[in-house]
């Protein structure tokens, strides 16, 4: 079991989650103003999952995000500037305007272009883990995915091969209860996705995905296993998508009491309260300062994106093939 976090480090996780939350909220506002020209899959409500997992990683570890990737990228310290520029389709975006919301990433931070085909990132993460193992590094690879991916063939093939070859991979299943609009109970006979881990001969762990410390602790354990050459872990983080599947989703299929209950367990509220309480006992001003600095960072990201040019027409056919470092 990992050491409990001190106030400073927990505050840092709080700030990261707050950055994701406020970033997503501003994205939503920019979308409504027509300044982001695509739909958005927002990470609001799930911040503790990515933040907790990525807090257990090194800068040279690898992350594969999903079609809901902003939180994964921010949690792995991809600059909000280049993410925002990408969302606003600017040449300075992390994908030079070729990727958009569903493919944000920055390989300098070990974050690959997010894979927006459900489940498809899982074998790729196994390959990344295989590569780390063959190259003799102790890097690990994290494949974030929703519970929906656990019903894709790629997921099963990937978990099996990661297990048989003991690859340094952590399969983080962010179980937010809904695959698009379909509830978990309609498409699983098992109680937890992690129950399936035993079928592949790897540990399966389920944690409160809204508790950043619980997620971090579980991730640290999985990372340690991976680095030690003991193979992959399936880590299920139970969380909730507080907004719709995408911008156009009103979530009429979800019961109000379910939404209310999960909102009462909002990861920011949870961690904020923990910081104000014993043993951390931070003053409210510490949280206010975090709020202010996050707002400033996002303002800066938007200003950067605004000031950036759109991709020039002569970029149209570039980067289809590798053009060199």
């Amino acid at each position, binding site marked *: 079991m990992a050491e409990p976090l001190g106030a400073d480090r927990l505050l840092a996780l709080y700030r990261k989650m707050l950055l994701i939350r406020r970033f997503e909220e501003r994205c939503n506002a920019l979308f409504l103003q027509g300044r982001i020209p695509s739909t958005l899959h927002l990470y609001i409500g799930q911040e503790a999952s990515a933040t907790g997992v990525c807090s257990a990683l090194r800068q040279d570890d690898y992350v594969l995000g999903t079609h809901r990737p902003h939180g994964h990228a921010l949690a792995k310290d991809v600059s909000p500037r280049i993410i925002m520029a990408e969302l606003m389709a600017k040449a300075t975006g992390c994908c030079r305007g070729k990727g958009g919301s569903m493919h944000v990433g920055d390989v300098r931070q070990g974050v690959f272009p997010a894979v927006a085909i459900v489940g498809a990132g899982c074998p790729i993460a196994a*390959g*990344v883990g*295989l590569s780390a193992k063959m190259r003799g590094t102790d890097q690990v690879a994290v494949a974030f995915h929703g519970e929906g991916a656990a019903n894709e063939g790629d997921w099963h*093939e990937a978990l*099996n091969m990661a297990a048989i070859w003991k690859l340094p991979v952590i399969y983080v299943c962010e179980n937010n209860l809904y695959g698009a609009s379909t509830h978990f109970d309609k498409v699983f006979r098992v109680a937890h996705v992690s129950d399936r881990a035993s079928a592949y001969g790897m540990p399966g762990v389920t944690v409160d995905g809204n508790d950043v410390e619980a997620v971090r602790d579980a991730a640290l354990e999985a990372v340690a296993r991976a680095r030690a050459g003991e193979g992959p872990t399936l880590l299920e983080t139970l969380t909730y998508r507080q907004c719709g599947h995408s911008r156009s989703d009103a979530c009429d299929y979800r019961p109000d009491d379910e939404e209310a209950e999960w909102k009462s367990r909002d990861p920011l509220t949870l961690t904020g309260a923990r910081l104000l309480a014993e043993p951390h006992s931070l003053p409210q001003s510490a949280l206010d300062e975090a709020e202010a600095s996050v707002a400033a960072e996002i303002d800066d990201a938007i200003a950067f994106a605004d000031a950036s040019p759109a991709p020039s027409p002569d970029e149209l056919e570039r980067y289809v093939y590798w053009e060199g470092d």
Partner: protein
Amino acid sequence: MAVMGIAEALREGIREEMRRDPTVFCIGEDIGVPGGWGGAFTVTLGLSEEFGPERIIDTPISESGFAGIAVGAAMTGMRPIADVQYGDFLFCMMDQLVNQAAKMTYMAGGAVKVPLVMRAPVGSTRRGAQHAQTLEVFFTHVPGLKVVAPSTAYDAKGLLKAAVRDDNPVLMFEHKLLYGSKGNRAEKGAVSPIGEVPEEDYIVPIGKGAIRRPGKDVTIVGKLLTVYRALGAADQLAEQGIDAEVIDPRTLVPLDKELILESVRKTHRFVVVEEDNRTHGWGAEIAAMVAEEAFWYLDAPPVRVSAPDIPPPFAPGLEELYVPSVDRVVAAVKGLF
């Protein structure tokens, strides 16, 4: 210089690349099992003895899975040579090849490379609808992939080495009837593309075609097996006073367009021979390219000789009708005069 077939030439190419570069490894089904086959067509036979199971990796029967693994490894500094037993199984890994491997560099704005080689045997060989397709065109249509199709042992080794060293995903299609007429995996009806293969390091550059037979009266383009059908036709045509030029593009993407166009500008007649289904096919693309870019040099319409729009049939008599024959090529060419 050693004389060998395509399977051996590929094996030597893989061996040399693996010796040269420790990031090169092979991954696929049944490729390194001791006492096994060395893949469905013996290409990796004996390599696990030299490089061990760590670099000749046998996978479960999980085509999409190991394709994704190859993609992930390629994205992080490795150079995998993946192998499917039959090209038909590429359809099982379509997402990994088309959505992931082909697009990763583009989606990353050029920040990620995927130096992946995927080898796939194709061609009608008495195996019917799911083990005998010729499906290059599914992949030549995908931006971000390179596609090569060697028809000689020399080219097989040279293109394999070029593909391994390329920083993009390269699909290598190999024809089951061309692996070689010797050995225990020789196919009935195999023609022999056996030839001299240098032992020293060399590559055949991706994107460079070859004139297999110079001629002045008509340009015939074929790939893989149909190169040999075209050459057979050229022999017959020569007896009838028609001097055919036979071109083997060797690389399908990027295509050596200028080699073909230059030939057409000289001969003024064009026939493309393909084992692929006719409609929306590879031949259609090549013919369209000729029509668009060499129209004013043509003395007759560009013509395709293709497989009909049916799955590969099993019955040998039907299969013979399916794969373009020398006679069909001859007839098509004579129709242009």
